[in-house]
């Protein structure tokens, strides 16, 4: 059943969903896209952040977004530590190539999953906030406010990161280390420290992204598995390391998913997303905005 109303609604919801996807993927765009770290534990870090937000919301009744902001410094430190362990055990010895680096992060993801289960149990958890469960009415349309919040925060987060990476000294250093680590070393900079800092930023961002995740839908310990495909799909489709590209690729993915869900049947949604990725890679192997 096709109607312009439905199509328009699907596009609007798709843009909102896409911005949310951008928020949960943008950290990976730094860690995997710029730093070339096979960070398959990224969605597990994201879910861990959601549980942190849940704990603060449940115990102190703090707004989920503020709770996300509050855990950001902790996640920055967690990122520094995670990269240091990865560097000392794999990268420094040159054993990070192939599946070994991936195995390290898979191990971390499983440990995080088990720790969450031990602490919180296996049940779904969700947060309360005034904007959850309500909709903004616009004529016949109703748009969930939680999605509008996710849209606005995700947009701000992505723009902030893009500006940080292109306009600040440290941001340009992170880009430089992604382009030519050796040249940076010759200029007297320590690429390992820069990469560690960048990984810290990529993880800190997950504090906010985790808040959005639990605002949009309830979380459970194994939710990371649902996001591993989507986040890597967004980052690869965007072109590795392109932050603004991540936003656009995520919106394309969100709109495509939403249109398929609304007009063609939900079963096709994952297939369409990944088919789009394959088409993009066939036409532009470096991704939409990759160099």
């Amino acid at each position, binding site marked *: 059943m096709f109607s312009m109303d*439905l199509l328009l609604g*699907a596009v609007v919801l798709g843009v909102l969903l896409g911005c949310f996807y951008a928020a949960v993927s943008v950290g990976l765009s730094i860690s995997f896209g710029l730093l070339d770290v096979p960070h398959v534990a990224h969605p597990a870090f994201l879910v861990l952040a959601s549980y942190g937000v849940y704990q603060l919301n449940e115990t102190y009744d703090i707004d989920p977004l503020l709770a996300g902001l509050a855990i950001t410094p902790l996640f920055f430190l967690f990122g520094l530590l995670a990269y240091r362990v990865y560097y000392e055990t794999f990268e420094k010895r040159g054993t990070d190539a192939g599946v070994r680096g991936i195995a390290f992060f898979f191990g971390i993801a499983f440990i995080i999953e088990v720790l969450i289960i031990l602490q919180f149990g296996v049940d779904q958890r969700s947060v309360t906030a005034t904007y959850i469960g309500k909709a903004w009415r616009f004529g016949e349309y*109703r748009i969930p406010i939680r999605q509008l919040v996710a849209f606005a925060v995700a947009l701000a987060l992505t723009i902030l990161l893009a500006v940080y990476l292109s306009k600040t000294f440290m941001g340009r250093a992170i880009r430089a280390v992604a382009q030519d680590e050796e040249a940076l070393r010759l200029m007297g900079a320590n690429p390992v420290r820069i990469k560690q800092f960048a990984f810290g930023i990529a993880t800190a961002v997950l504090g906010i992204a985790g808040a959005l995740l639990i605002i949009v*839908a309830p979380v459970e310990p194994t939710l990371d598995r649902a996001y591993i495909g989507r986040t890597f799909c967004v980052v690869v489709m965007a072109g590795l390391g392109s932050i603004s590209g991540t936003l656009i690729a995520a919106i394309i993915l969100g709109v495509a998913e939403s249109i398929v869900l609304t007009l063609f049947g939900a079963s096709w949604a994952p297939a369409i997303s990944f088919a789009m990725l394959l088409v993009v890679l066939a036409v532009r192997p470096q991704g939409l905005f990759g160099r």
Partner: protein
Amino acid sequence: MKRRTFLGGAMAVAVAGHGSRALAQQPPIKIGMSMAQTGGLAGGGKASQLGIEIWRDDINAKGGLLGRKVELIVYDDKSSASETPAIYAKLVDVDKVDLLFAPYATVPTAPLMPFVKQRGLLLMGNFSFQVNSKVGHDMWFNNAPWGPADSWASSFLDLGQKAGGKTLALLSADQEFAQNLVLTAREVAKKRNMPVVFDQNYPPNTVEFSSIIRALKAAKPDIVYVSSYPPDSAGILRAVNEIGIGDNVKIFGGGMVGLQFAAVMSNLGSLLNGVVNYNTWLPEPSMYHEGTKAFFDVYTKRAVEAKVDPLGYYLAPFGYAMGQMVEAAVIATKSLDQKGLAKYLRDNEHKTIVGPIAFSADGERKESATVQAQFRGVVDKDVEQFRSSGKQVILFPEKMKTGNLISPFEAARK
């Protein structure tokens, strides 16, 4: 102390000591199963396992079965169908278990059916839906109260039609259990010449349901039958609350898994109001039988330590009942012969804490005891409210009914 009293006491101690030595010396009766400890089904799996463990502890306190202690061997199947065939092969060939209990739910159970049929093994089913319909294994007995395949959808559509519903929308998760459920709904609708105006399956891991609910609303159905799994049920209800479902919908729900679990019910709170959904046990006077209250007294205490569903209505008493049925069969046949046990289970009615259970030829209940209940007066963030009667008014079956349907759905939500 008089000499006679002393001798009597000494003899009692000796007899008791001898008895426990006999119990300890005999090898235990091993019951093997996999159970979801992680993954989407883990909430239910853990509660179900606790119910079975309470039965094990009760039977061992009574001296075991055939004078032997009962031991459970349980592996985590991660809620996955790909894990269970290897686990059950290990249970049978390596662990050499005496009896098998099925894992919780349809998806992990379905791939086991060819294996148990080929090996001629008794399998006590644990809340799967129609996994034996095509396999036709005559040693399968499901503890769930589903009954005949179409009774679930029939009862829901009956309620919808009585409320004036003429058209149907079907929304279903794209996996075994939900598909079995929605298939019967399609068949019942076809028999009744009821037009299906919306019929969609959504894939596992669907994050956002707003688009789907918008499309469903545009189809303007009268009856909305949803068969979803726990991770999705909350997302669907949230989207329904935000997007709306239309004033013409008379009844919404039917087969949403998850709305039976305390954490999900507590999280959704008032969003549940008006939803008519299936359930298996509710704290209504008509649902108490011998041992039910005592079971829940123990469960409530142990659920806190085990960090499982604090209510445990949906699965735990049926896990216990599964043990009771095996217990009755072993005691009556005085053996662990699987064919003998299967014959006993098939030919007799069994007294359990969830009421009498009798099986039809396909190993499902002869008569459905699945209730359809409407959530009413639910408030946010209060799990304890679900311990009192009246929060889920039973609409079906007739003999357990505690109220009438409030319709249309939007009115019932207020």
